[in-house]
């Protein structure tokens, strides 16, 4: 009986460890969408921003089902990292922590300040890059374009 209790304790300990290790991930792109199903054609239920933390409930075929602020849905895994992203802050503790590999500081290293300096020194055609980045494809237009061309996107209706 005592041994049984020992095993039970170990199992409980294991379960507790597993719960403690529930997967949290961060959004590592400027903006991404939480969708109703794992497909870029799925309905958008919420928008996530750089650095947002999400709880990962399951992963399948390149997509992660996540929970954030009470909304549950699918985000493409390529938008997520296991690192915690610390937005620029004067908090010295957070910045010291960023020397480890588990945390990334947003807005540091090659950033807007470095670009401004480089741009001022080199000139180059940044204006054309800005114009191109401002060019957005409308989601409904893209869906129609794919359908008319008998094309499809991977992903499902689950």
């Amino acid at each position: 009986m005592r041994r049984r209790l020992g095993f039970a304790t170990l199992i409980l300990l294991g379960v507790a460890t597993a719960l403690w290790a529930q997967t949290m991930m961060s959004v590592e792109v400027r903006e991404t969408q939480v969708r109703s199903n794992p497909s870029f054609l799925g309905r958008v239920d919420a928008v996530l921003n750089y650095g947002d933390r999400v709880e990962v409930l399951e992963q399948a075929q390149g997509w992660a089902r996540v929970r954030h602020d009470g909304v549950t849905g699918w985000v493409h895994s390529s938008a997520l990292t296991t690192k915690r992203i610390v937005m620029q802050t004067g908090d010295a503790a957070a910045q010291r922590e960023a020397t480890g590999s588990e945390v990334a500081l947003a807005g540091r290293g090659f950033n807007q300040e470095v670009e401004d300096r480089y741009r001022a020194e080199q000139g180059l055609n940044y204006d054309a890059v800005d114009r191109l980045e401002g060019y957005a494809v409308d989601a409904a237009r893209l869906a129609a374009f794919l359908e008319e061309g008998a094309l499809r996107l991977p992903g499902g209706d689950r």
Partner: protein
Amino acid sequence: MMRNGFRTRGFFPSVFLILGAAAIVVGGCESLGSIAEVGTGVAVATGRMTEQQAESVTRTADAVSRSFEDITPEQEYYIGRAVGATILDQYEPFDEQAVTEYLNLVGQGLAMASDRPELFGGYRFMALDSDEINAFATPSGLVFISRGLLRLTRSEDDVAAILAHEIGHIRHRHGLQAIRTSRITTALTSAAITGAQFATSEEVAELTEAFEGSISDITSTLVNSGYSRGAEREADEAAVEIMKRVGYDPNGLIRVLERMNESWVADGPGFMRTHPSPTARIDVVRNAIGTYRHDGTGSAERQRRYERALGSI
């Protein structure tokens, strides 16, 4: 018997759970850089090292573990913008609304079907006003294709093949791999990023220098030396896979390569300087296509809109 059975069943899960817990603890352990930091912290506290010595030890240890894989998508974005600004300084953009819209519709569909659809700032596609036969991709997701290369296409599937190949380079981060390790080390271990305090102007100057060097490493690879054969193979294989997923005929890539082969001169300009010979690539692509057969659905509508957008390119 029952007790034995219980023990047997009970024992193994417990072992796995303990191992699992141990793995989590070990997995959460520090990188080499942080271990060095703890060690130097002790040395400083016991008076065996000055703060300055400690910092240099920390930086060296950090440097060991830095590579292109440590560049975040945010930094990749700034690198890619600068590469794009350099390319658009050397080549005139061909900014015609119908062409840009068409390239972006085809390109976005392909990017969404790739293994890396999400980039910090997203994918964008644009034609270059040049007769040269060439295409470029920046690490941040800007894809450029020359009018000369577009003129070698005969269908939307041919255009898709070229764009999918460029998306393959982005997905495999080939551009970042062209950056010399020493620059990445400077960029990722400078005090401006490890951040004990906000960057001083000298630190920003040091970073800007590393940035300038990184951009030059990438653009000279893109424009002059080209990626390795292995990288081109990866991009071609990714292109075939993406096209199969979306429903384009991957033979479009072979058709484009055959036409490129007709204008091939060893050491010629554009793609001839930066890519393996088209015949060598055709073998790779045939292998990647394997037994896949495209059923031809949607071809008529795709042909109609291809001619409308690019008929007079």
